[in-house]
Every structure is written in structure tokens, then in C-alpha cells.
């Protein structure tokens, strides 16, 4: 329950809507019982031929209860859902601010987008806490207890039986089944992952499976996984069915006991017979309000798990916050110089280090290119310079100050980054460029868009989620435009034009370098053309720096870079 404390706290911000939904819920529940009680009484009374005015009153009451019930139900639904969505918005903002300090390392651990989507899924599932876990039992309890009190006015033994029925059907049975169901949910989730993995392998590896004649065995395996998954789902479904059947049977048993006891009490003369039909109908209806109780434990487990996972992340975030250095970067009064000394880096849980003993010097205002085959550690090195992750050992200094002691916000203010997989937000070009600064005029934005040859876009052009409506090259150029507008004195560029055609690439890069001629630039390059004018080229392979020097020097050295260049010359039709 402790995991859920923060959810409850966030929930109570919306207490007004909460109270309203509970009140209407109770009203709806009570009027349902009242309708049946009334009609039971009405028909019995009518049999005794009472004066007409009494009947008229009860008929009128019946209509009143009916209308109240329908409208109260409507209001309950309306307010409970409204509260739920408001709570969701509170949970989201709360989480966003909590997760924010964790951002870079969150990405280190959750390198696949899937896990991030799961965090989102967990947050969304918390909305069920109010709607399906918190308030239904309250409503049920109030309605039930009121009903019990009402019946006690006519016969306390009947009231007692109802109370007993409530305890069994509302609490005992759901609780027992919840315990039994616990393992199954986890098992199903695991089987679902397995099915997804098998399907992915089957589809993505189709060609290789076909060529190696493994298609049919993989197909069989996939079918088997699917069957096991479906069977487990079936087991779960049937258990739920059994749960509600047992619950239903106990509620019927309670009604039966009410009938039997009522009949006995009437025949013994302890209860007026005119109330018998009413008591019977009450007992048959009041259990309807207990129906949502069967799904409470399931949702409770779900939300508890979600809250548990999320609060472990929050705790980590809070720890991170404490560790966070409050060191300050003295205002950079010019393009920074950077120094790496014996930097090692290894992703947690991986056997091989990604970077081994990397040392380099980037003087203020210098232009450096990093090249090397895929998987050689270029991007990781750039991420380390950005302080997205700390090095496993070794130091990185900027302006002579240790990066580990610098305030990140202060650092990032001075950096214009173009990373791989730049993120674009849903909205328009203007909104995406405005990240670089609030007071950038449309004219300025248009000017920069033309620098990067995106004249066909205007500041009002729509950008879909993750820039889905832009081509790879367009996204890269938009990211360059954003970096240009930011005017940082350190430019960190990770293969910024790998999807851009060579001619445009040359123009854009020329423009970028002219605009930043005084700044320090680090450029990871996917090819070796156009590097002739760089101050320094660093060649990496398997996480190590194996060569460095100017283009001229490296070519004369006839080493790794030279041979890479020779291969590149021998390749044609690279990027069309």
C-alpha cells in the first residue's frame, strides 16, 4: 500500500470531483434499492386493498426513485470520469518533473523505446486506481450499510444476514481469488513478450530463415507459443468466470436465507407480512451494487505493480538529485577548450568496454572530426562530452574544469547539439525551432531554414510526432537549423548529414562552418570526404583512438585512415 501513497496524494487534489462522484454513486445505488423496495411494498400493500391515496403516493415515489436513479447514475459516471482524467493529468505532470533529472541515465538504461513506453503505460494505468479501485468499494459500503440499517428497522436478523452476505461477497471472495490470480497475470505478461519476440524473429528474420530452411520449425515454434499463450489466457478467463459465479451464488444464497428467514419470521408473527416481498426484493437487488467489487482486486494488483515500478524510478531520481553537484560553470567567455584524459566507458551489464583509454585535446575554436567504422564508440564519446553519462574512469575537462563537477543546465546552455535520432515534437516547425530560444522571429527562422535548404518548409508547416512526416534528410537539416539558432559556442555534431545528398550536404556544412567559424566544433562524420580543412581528425576503432592528425598527415601516414579512404574511393553509389 505504501507504493500507492503518492497516487492517493495526487488523487486528493481533485477531492471535489471525487466527493461528488461518491455522492452520486451512493444516490444511484440507494435509489435502485429504493425502487425495488417500493415496488415490493406497493404490490403487497395493494393486495390488502388500502385507500387509493396511499397507493398513489407509493407509485409517485416509485417514479421519483426511478428518475433519480437514472440521473444520479449519469452524474456519477460523468464526475468520476472527469476526476479520473484530471488525476491522470496530475500524475503525468508529477512524473514528468520527477523523471526529468533522470533523463540521460534513463536513456542509458532504457535504450529501447519500449521501456519508455512502459513507463507511460504504467502512468496511464494509475488512472484506474480511482475509477476502479478506490471509489467503488466506498459507494458499495455506504449503500450496503444504509440498506442494512433500513432493513434492521423491520427485522434485525434479516439485516444481519445481509451484512454477512456483504462481508463474504464484497470482501472474502474477491480477496481469495485475487491471491489465486496473482501468479497468472505475471505469467501471461511473460508469454505475451515471448509471443512478440517469436513473431518479431519470424518476420524480421524471414529471409534468413527461409534460406536456411528453418522457416517451418520457427513457424511451429511460433504456433506453439501462441497456443500456450491462448491457453493461459483461457485459464485466466475461466478463473475469473468461476470467481464471479461463486460470488453470484453466495449472493443468491444470502437472498435465499433472507427469504427463508423472512418467511419464518412472518409466520412466527415477528415481522408484518406486508414487508416480506419488500425484504426479498431488497436482498435480490442490493447485491448488484457489489458487482464492481469482483474487479477491484485485479485492478488493485495492476495499479499496485505500476506504482511499485514507478516509485522505484522516483526513488532513484531522488537519489540522483541528492548526488547532483551544485558546481557552477563560470560563464564561458568564448568557445571552450576540451580535454579528455584516459577515459574509459562501459555500459552497465556489457562485457566489452565501449571506450578504452581515450585521451584527446580540443583547443578553443578548433574543428575536430571523429571517424571510424560503425560500433567504434564515436557517438558514446560525444555523449560523454555532453555529460549524458559519466565516464567509468578518467576525466573530461572543459575550460580546465572537471565535467563531473559542472552544473548540467549551465553546460548545455553553451552547447549546440545535433545528435542522431533528434527528437521533434508534434506541432509546427516554429514550435520545434523555438526550443532554441523564445525570442526568435519568424524571419530569422525562415532565414536559417533557407541556410539548410529547407525553403520548402515554412515556420507554420506541420511536424508530426517524432517528425514522422519528414524524411531522414529533412529531419537532420531541421536539427541543424535548431542548433544554428541556439548559438552555442560548442557544436557537437553526430553524423548530422548522413541522409542528405552529397551536394546539399556540402552546402549545408559550409554554411554551418561559416556561421560557427570561431566556435569549437566536434563532428562525427560518416564519410571521409570534406575533412581536408579540419584542424584535427581522430580515427577510432573498437573504442580506441588509433590515429589522429590533419587530413594531410593521416594520408601521408598511410595507416588506417588512408586505407579507409582507399576503400571509400573504391565504393560507388553510396548515398543517392
Amino acid at each position: 500500500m505504501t507504493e500507492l501513497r503518492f497516487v492517493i496524494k495526487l488523487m486528493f487534489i481533485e477531492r471535489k470531483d471525487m466527493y461528488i462522484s461518491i455522492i452520486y454513486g451512493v444516490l444511484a445505488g440507494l435509489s435502485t434499492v429504493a425502487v425495488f423496495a417500493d415496488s415490493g411494498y406497493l404490490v403487497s400493500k395493494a393486495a390488502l386493498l388500502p385507500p387509493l391515496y396511499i397507493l398513489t403516493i407509493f407509485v409517485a415515489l416509485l417514479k421519483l426513485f426511478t428518475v433519480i436513479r437514472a440521473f444520479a447514475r449519469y452524474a456519477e459516471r460523468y464526475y468520476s470520469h472527469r476526476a479520473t482524467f484530471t488525476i491522470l493529468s496530475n500524475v503525468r505532470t508529477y512524473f514528468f518533473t520527477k523523471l526529468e533529472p533522470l533523463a540521460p541515465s534513463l536513456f542509458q538504461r532504457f535504450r529501447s523505446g519500449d521501456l519508455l513506453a512502459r513507463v507511460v503505460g504504467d502512468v496511464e494505468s494509475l488512472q484506474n486506481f480511482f475509477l476502479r479501485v478506490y471509489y467503488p468499494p466506498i459507494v458499495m459500503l455506504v449503500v450496503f450499510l444504509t440498506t442494512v440499517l433500513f432493513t434492521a428497522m423491520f427485522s434485525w436478523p434479516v439485516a444481519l444476514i445481509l451484512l454477512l452476505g456483504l462481508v463474504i461477497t464484497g470482501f472474502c471472495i474477491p480477496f481469495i481469488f485475487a491471491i489465486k490470480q496473482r501468479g497468472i497475470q505475471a505469467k501471461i505478461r511473460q508469454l505475451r513478450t515471448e509471443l512478440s519476440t517469436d513473431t518479431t524473429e519470424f518476420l524480421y528474420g524471414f529471409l534468413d530463415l527461409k534460406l536456411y530452411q528453418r522457416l517451418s520449425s520457427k513457424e511451429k515454434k511460433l504456433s506453439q507459443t501462441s497456443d500456450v499463450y491462448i491457453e493461459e489466457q483461457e485459464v485466466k478467463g475461466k478463473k475469473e468466470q468461476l470467481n464471479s459465479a461463486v460470488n453470484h451464488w453466495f449472493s443468491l444464497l444470502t437472498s435465499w436465507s433472507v427469504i427463508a428467514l423472512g418467511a419464518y419470521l412472518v409466520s412466527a408473527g415477528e415481522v408484518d407480512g406486508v414487508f416480506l416481498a419488500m425484504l426479498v426484493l431488497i436482498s435480490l437487488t442490493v447485491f448488484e451494487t457489489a458487482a464492481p467489487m469482483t474487479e477491484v482486486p485485479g485492478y488493485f494488483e495492476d495499479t499496485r505493480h505500476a506504482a511499485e515500478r514507478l516509485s522505484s524510478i522516483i526513488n532513484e531520481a531522488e537519489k540522483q538529485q541528492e548526488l547532483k553537484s551544485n558546481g557552477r560553470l563560470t560563464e564561458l567567455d568564448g568557445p571552450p577548450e576540451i580535454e579528455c584524459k584516459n577515459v574509459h566507458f562501459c555500459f552497465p551489464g556489457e562485457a566489452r568496454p565501449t571506450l578504452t583509454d581515450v585521451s584527446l585535446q580540443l583547443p578553443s575554436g578548433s574543428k575536430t572530426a571523429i571517424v571510424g567504422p560503425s560500433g567504434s564508440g564515436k557517438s558514446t564519446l560525444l555523449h560523454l562530452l555532453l555529460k549524458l553519462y559519466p565516464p567509468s574512469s578518467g576525466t573530461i575537462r572543459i575550460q580546465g574544469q572537471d565535467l563531473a563537477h559542472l552544473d548540467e543546465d549551465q553546460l548545455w546552455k553553451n552547447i549546440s547539439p545535433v545528435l542522431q535520432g533528434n527528437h521533434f515534437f508534434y506541432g509546427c516547425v516554429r514550435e520545434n525551432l523555438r526550443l532554441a530560444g523564445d525570442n526568435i522571429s519568424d524571419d530569422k527562422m525562415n532565414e536559417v531554414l533557407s541556410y539548410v535548404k529547407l525553403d520548402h518548409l515554412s515556420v507554420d508547416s506541420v511536424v508530426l510526432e517524432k517528425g514522422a512526416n519528414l524524411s531522414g534528410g529533412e529531419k537532420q537539416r531541421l536539427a541543424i537549423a535548431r542548433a544554428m539558432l541556439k548559438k552555442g559556442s560548442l557544436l557537437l555534431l553526430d553524423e548530422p548529414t548522413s541522409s542528405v545528398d552529397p551536394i546539399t550536404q556540402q552546402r549545408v556544412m559550409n554554411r554551418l562552418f561559416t556561421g560557427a567559424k570561431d566556435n569549437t566544433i566536434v563532428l562525427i562524420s560518416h564519410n571521409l570526404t570534406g575533412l581536408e580543412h579540419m584542424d584535427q581528425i581522430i580515427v577510432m576503432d573498437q573504442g580506441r583512438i588509433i590515429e589522429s592528425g590533419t587530413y594531410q598527415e593521416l594520408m601521408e601516414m598511410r595507416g588506417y585512415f588512408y586505407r579507409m579512404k582507399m576503400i571509400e574511393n573504391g565504393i560507388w553509389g553510396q548515398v543517392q
Partner: protein
Amino acid sequence: MKQLKDLAKQQKRSMYSLSFTAFVIGCMTVLQALLIVSIVTNIFLEEMPFSAVILQLAALLAVFSVRGLCAYIHGKTGIAMASQAKKQFRQALITQYSHNPVQASIKGQSGQKVTLVTDVVDEIDPYFSKYYPQRILSSIVSIILLAAVVWQNWVSAVIMLVTAPLIPVFMIIIGKKTEKKALQHVEKLTVLAGKFLDSLQGLVTLKLFGKVKEEAALIKKSSIDYRTATMDVLKFAFLSSLVLELISMLGTALIALEVGLRLVIYQNISFFPAFFVLAIAPEFYKTLKDVGSAFHAGKGSMAAAEKIIDELEGSHQTIKWGNKMLSDTACPPSMVLNNLSFTYGEDHFSLHGINAEFEPNSQIAIIGPSGAGKTSLLHLLAGIYKPATGEVLVNDEPLFTYDEREWFDKLIYISQDPYIFSGTIKDNILIACPEKKISENELGTVLEKAGLTELIQQLENGINTSIGEAGRGLSGGEKQRIALARAFLKRPSIILFDEPTVGLDLYTESILQKSIAELAQTATIITVAHRLHTIKQADCILYLEKGTLVGKGTHKELLEQTKDYLTMVEEHQGGAAG
């Protein structure tokens, strides 16, 4: 939509079981009302002693139990039907995918297909587990209840008959309205709902640009907008249940009024039928309302089924192989491309009229600008695609007259991005020869040749290190070398090779060249070539442009014969120099 119903009807046993349990439930509901009413009448009006109703009480308990048991069986049957249907749908999809070779070419859409096989199939469930059983239950039970009321008091039955149809009518009217409203909102809703994920995914970008605080406010705003938009849609849904509730409650109230008046004023009805009708009426309306809510659950299934059926009805292209064996000589087979054409679909790209002959042991290079159809040609040669016209002749016989296994045993395809399955490095190499027993020694030689020995020594678990989806990632060069290891193990007589364009380390480059040269000694090798030296060495170059073969011959011949080729070479050399 129709198909789901047909599928349900195919499961005859379950259908009968559902109908039977529904019938029993209907009868038990009537019996329950009869017994309760008679107990109350006996005790209250007839003032009988308690002992007189004991038998009836026992019967009532039995009725309750039978009703509960039947409801359980009814629900269970629906769940079993759902499992059956899900199995059928998923199996159909898997079979479709495994027999449709065009599949190999549409990697981009695989994500969607994975969802189709997993989640979309799961969405079929509610139709069978909820909607369909409820429909049978409601239709049978409502008729039985109505009949019982006719028997006891036909006036009430008339009221029920008049009010009941209002329920489906209103449901359809409001359902249509909701749907329209939802459709209007659908784009807005997905955008607003996705905002949170969007912000989280862009968190690093936001931090680097110092915009985190503003974003939190935006999340709040979009969540509240989402609330407003969703409530607009939900209001209609709630309104629909409000109307249904009013109709059913009004029906019940009308009946109560009717029996009340007839009991007291006209005195032409007794207590027993009056109470009986009052007990039955709510059950009658409830069962009708339940179809309504089950319908909403079933609706998603229908949309899901439509998606799957669309996919199943898409293009089919199966290949039938023969049973001819390839003559088991050391010499690789000869290959002839006889007027080969291929197309993906009307507006898509196609290959046409390719003619060529490959001698055994020759080196063939396929070149041309991207989108010329090089990879498709490779797939046609591999026997993965079926040509639209023409054929590939292997040892003068059409390719598809050979035994499939026999053919693929002789062939290996090294793509630019070899697929690594989740499993160990060893599993991934041995996949090339699943049946052969490979000695440690042999494996060692293969690893050595593919340049993997050093990598494996570095790893704690050596060759048993897990890689692929579940394991750790490999660099592009390492994947290439694993593919080479597969080739060395298999020793194929035909090699199809898609030469890498960029990004390999020099070590892999040199291994690649050495390995291909060695493998080529005993095989015909057909390369989609990007390297000049591969092209210069080739015995025959096929120069493709926009799906047409525009030049054929050695490097020298092509330079003389084909103008485009000459320009291409000149352009490239110009580019490389500058």
C-alpha cells in the same frame, strides 16, 4: 463482421451448449420468480405456517444453484470459443506470412505485422467471450420471460413488448451519434494522449535546450484538453445508458402502475400474477440492456477482425517446388536467366526482360543506381520470389522443378545486414547446417577463417555468449563475419552476396575479401557490387537501370559498349578524386 458470426456458427458444439444453458437460465429465472412469489403469497396472504413452504424453499435453493452453474458454464463456453477463434486467426496469419515470399522485401512494415499477430488477434476475444454468448443468452431468455408473463398477465406482456424495442432503437441512434463524435475527435485525441510519451521521448532534447519547465506546463494543458475532448465523447455514451435506463425503469414503473391499479381499483388480478410480473420485468429489461453493453465490447473485435481479414485477403504468391535432385558433382550448376520479369504490384517498381547466362564457377556482378532492382534480381535468383514471366534455368531445368531443400542446401545469401537470431553465437553459426554434426575442430577453423576467433576470446562466455534481440548488440562488421562463418560451414556452390556500402572496419573488410575469394573457388558467386575491384574482377557484369538490363559483359567490354556505364565510371572517379 459477418465472418466473425460465421466463425462462431462453425463451433457447433459450443453454439448448442450456449443455447442450451441460455434456455436453462431462462427457465430457472421464471421458476425462481414463481417460487419466490408463491412463498411470499403463502406466508403473507394465505398465512400458512412456515413448514408449508419448506419444500418450496428447498426447490428455490436448487433453482439458484442450477442458475449459477449454468451461468458459469455459459461464460466458460464463450471463453473457450474465443480461444478457438484466436488460434484460428493467428494460425491463418502465420501461415499466410510463411508462404508469401514478398514478405521478405517489406521489412519496413514488420512492426505493424507483429502487432497484427499479437495484439490485434487478442482484440478478437471480447466478441466471442462477451458479445456472442450474451446475444444468445438475451435472445433466448427474453423470449422465455415474455412467454411467462403472457401466461400470467398478458397486459403486462403488451407493455413489455411495446417498450422493449425502444432499447435497440435508441441504442442505434445514440451509437451512431457517438461514433460520429468520436471520429471527429479521433485525431485530436490520439495527439493529446500521445503528448506525454512524446515529451518523455524528447526529454534529452528538452534538457539540452533548457526547456523542461515549459514542457511540464504543456503536459498539464494537453492532459486537460484531452479530458475535455474525451468527456465530450463520453457524455454521449453516458447519455445512451441514461436513456436505456430510463426506458427500462419506465417500463417497470408502467407495469407496476398497471398491476397496482388492476389489483386495487379494478380488482381483476390477484396478488400472485401481480407480484410475479413485477419480479420478472426488471430481469427482462436487464437482459436487453446487457446486450447493449456487450455490443460495445464486441465492436472492437469486429474492427480487429476486419484488419486481419484484409491482410489475409492481400496478395498471395506461393511457390511450388518440384522434387528433382541437383546432380551431386563438385561443380556448381550453370544458371540461365530466361526473359525474367518481376513486379511488386501495379504502381510499384518492376524488373523486366532480363536475359543472362552464368557459367559454373563464374563471378557475376550486378550493378546500377539504387532502386534499379538489384536486390530483387538477387531474390529471384535465390528462388524466394516468383517471376511474373520467364524463368531461371539451373542445369537447363527450371529452378522450381528442383527440390526446395536440395536447392537451399546448395546456396547461401550474405545480405548487407545479416539477421542475428536471439541465441548464442554458436547457435547463430550452426543455423547454416542444422543437421550436420560439427566437430569442435571444424568449428574452430570456421571461426578462424571468418575472423571471429579474437572476438570470441574476449568474451567471458566465448562462443556461448547470447546475441541478437535478447543478447547484446554486435557491430555491423561483426554481423558480417558471423554471416561469413555460416558460409564457411555450409560451403555452398552458389553464393549470393550483397556487398556492404559503408561502415565496415578495415579488419572486416580484409576478412571479407579473403573469404569471398576463397569461397568463390568452389562456387558461382553473384554479387550486388559496390566496390570497384569486385566489378573489375567479374567475369560478367549486369548493369541495371530502372529494372532493365542496359549492359552486359566484362568491365572492359562494357566500357566500350555501354555509354551510360562509361559515364558512371567517369563520374565516380571524378567524385573520388575530388
